[in-house]
């Protein structure tokens, strides 16, 4: 287990909220009321990146950096930033209604893992590797079984951020759909018919 404090950059050190072990929070289900927080996930990625209840500072930086390697700003369609992939990921990995909770934990563990590998192999945090060397580093990671599985899980969530309804925070301004000439089905979901509402009916949770 990596000690957050030990490797968090100085700049971030002072922000005490980032010292919290967010996964404990997750497991305790304190974030169950996703509905009340949704504006946070959809509105301001920049703010989320610097302060969110789900990841610590270092994990946030690793996530942001990884997303831009996996879905770069390369002139071909939107980048991870353009579709608010970061905001979508934060929403998705705190969603404790998800049947596959272990998938969320796996994503977060992978953020720690990739950074640990960067420190081991490059003697620096993943996000401090020069931008033009990051893809090569991920290429190396994907050669391992764990790394391939993790990147694959990241790509799956990226697809969701790109292609699900903007209601969930990704696909900002329908940029994913526009880029791929995709016509959505109609009627589209609304705030009142978000998946959490339907899932709670299925799980018989009073709402």
């Amino acid at each position: 287990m990596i000690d957050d404090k030990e490797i968090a950059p100085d700049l971030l050190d002072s922000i005490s909220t980032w010292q919290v072990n967010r996964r404990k929070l997750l497991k305790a289900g304190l974030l169950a009321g996703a509905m009340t927080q949704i504006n946070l996930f959809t509105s301001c990625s920049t703010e989320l990146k610097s302060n969110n209840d789900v990841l610590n500072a270092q994990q946030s930086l690793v996530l942001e950096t990884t997303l831009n390697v996996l879905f770069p700003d390369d002139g071909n369609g939107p980048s991870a930033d353009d579709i608010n992939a970061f905001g979508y990921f934060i929403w998705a990995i705190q969603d404790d209604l998800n049947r596959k909770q272990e998938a969320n934990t796996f994503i977060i563990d992978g953020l720690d893992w990739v950074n640990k590998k960067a420190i081991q192999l490059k003697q620096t945090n993943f996000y401090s590797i020069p931008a033009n060397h990051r893809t090569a580093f991920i290429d190396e990671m994907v050669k391992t079984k764990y790394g391939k599985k993790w990147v694959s899980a990241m790509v799956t969530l990226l697809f969701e951020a790109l292609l699900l309804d903007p209601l969930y925070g990704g696909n900002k301004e329908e940029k994913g759909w526009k880029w791929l000439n995709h016509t959505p089905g109609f009627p589209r979901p609304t705030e009142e018919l978000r998946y959490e509402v339907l899932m709670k009916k299925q799980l018989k949770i009073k709402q």
Partner: protein
Amino acid sequence: MSNAKYDICIVGSGAGAGPIIYELSKAGFKVLVLEKGPWLKTKDFTKDEMTATRRDAYTPHLKDERHVVEKKDSKGKWYAQSTEDTGSDLWNGSCVGGSSNFMSAYFHRLKPKDFRLKSEYGPIEGANIVDWPITYDELEPYYTKVEEIIGVSGKVLPHKNLEPRSTPDYPYPPLKTNIVADWFVEGGKKEGFNIVPAARGIISEPKDKRQPCYHSNYCGSFGCSSDAKASSRAALINIALDTGNCEIRPDSKVFKLENDSTGNISKVWYYDFNDMKQSVEADIFVVACQAIETARLLLMSKSDEFPNGIGNNNGQVGKNLIFAGGGAGSGSIRFDQLSTEDRAKFDAPLTFVNQTLLDFYEIDNAPELGERLKGGTIDFLIEHANPMPKAFRSKYKGNTLLYGSALKENLKDYFTEQKRVRYEIFCDWLPTDNCNVSLDETVKDKWNDPVGKVKLGYHEHDLIVGNYLAEQAEKVMKNVGAIDINRSINGNPPTNLIAGGCRFGNDPETTVLDKNCKAHEVNNLYVTDGSFMPTGGSVPHTFTIYANSFRVADKLIERLRMTSDLESIG
């Protein structure tokens, strides 16, 4: 006189339940429906992939309710795993209307020979093939009833395996189709194949309070917002409710059928919304929980009279589970091969093809397979329009996981430079001793009841037939310009097309139900989902499930009327 509050209590509300609910309510009987899932109304359905397919909000959470699946490994050794661990589940739709809300509604009738599979084609070693206790002619009026009441659209054109019909055509005209439908017909002609329109359980014109299909773009796996799709909820239950005779209790999970000392069911027990145990009495009970859960409920209902589960003193409950055999394949038609006009038409958000090839329903021109054997149905389709499955197809190139610019290029190409067309094969999933439902000894659901253990064995013959049909389908696929064609014919069952497990038949020793779908051993228990089917035919099952349920409804009305006549005389 019976002091039961309800004449009839139905467990489940999907395709197998709907016709009973509809007919009995209309006939004036007091009907109670216990449905485990929530009551979602038409307005609750949207085209949200998150809800429908990514987070599966229409089916139970696997941590609460699961199955144990038994499969063979590559060395032929059986192993069992909880679906909670594998994540692949056997649920299809848990809400009022069941999976019928989410089906694609390809509606094919069985053919007369399907009712006498053993007599027509003889036995196959290792397969428990039997003839049905009823004939096609007995079911035909009920297929017609389904077409009218539930609403089936299509166009009857002659072909060599066309089943006899009492009406010349479907009551609803065919749905609008994508231009590729014409290409498939032409592609078939080049091979000498007669490709004909496929019927759908989707209305193309208004009916009662239902609106016609407006081609919403996402159909299979999604609820319908116009009620055009022939779900049991939209087409039957909503009308039953108007009679004032039908009560729906959603969030009511039945866990036991309790019998009295005569062996009749006296009450059913269920967990309500708050997980409290409740019971209810009725004169007659109908179970239609979808084949696996139906067998499980019967097996769980143990008593002194039925130590192995109700109706199971002959040990037949759960045996001979079947699926739809066959598989699927797909290939891409690249836009640069098309004229500008054709490209625009092909790329339009109109996803229906509705063309089917039934020339090989019986195979009599393939000596390498035998003189004459049962074949199946080939449907032609376009891949589903919802984007996530398309994205998954773009995730790898060969075995290489893509990311970065390579991934983006692949996505862009997949979505904007081509469209994938598909074929689906339906052939018999031969019933065997290796495909069945029992109770798991150790794994429990959230109420601490034993979960269903599902053994998923298949017969090699299914793959031989499936591959033969796939070869025919692929000839047509090539003729329409599809490249990069892949095929998936294997022993993995389509987990949305389930039947069998409570066979009907005349012999009380070897079957669970009599020919009217009443349990041989229990005088007031009927089963009307696909469980009754001893063989499944070479089509998806729902048209037949609906038709049979209408047939049983007539028997029930007859019986209840007779009882009330006797009571009034007495």
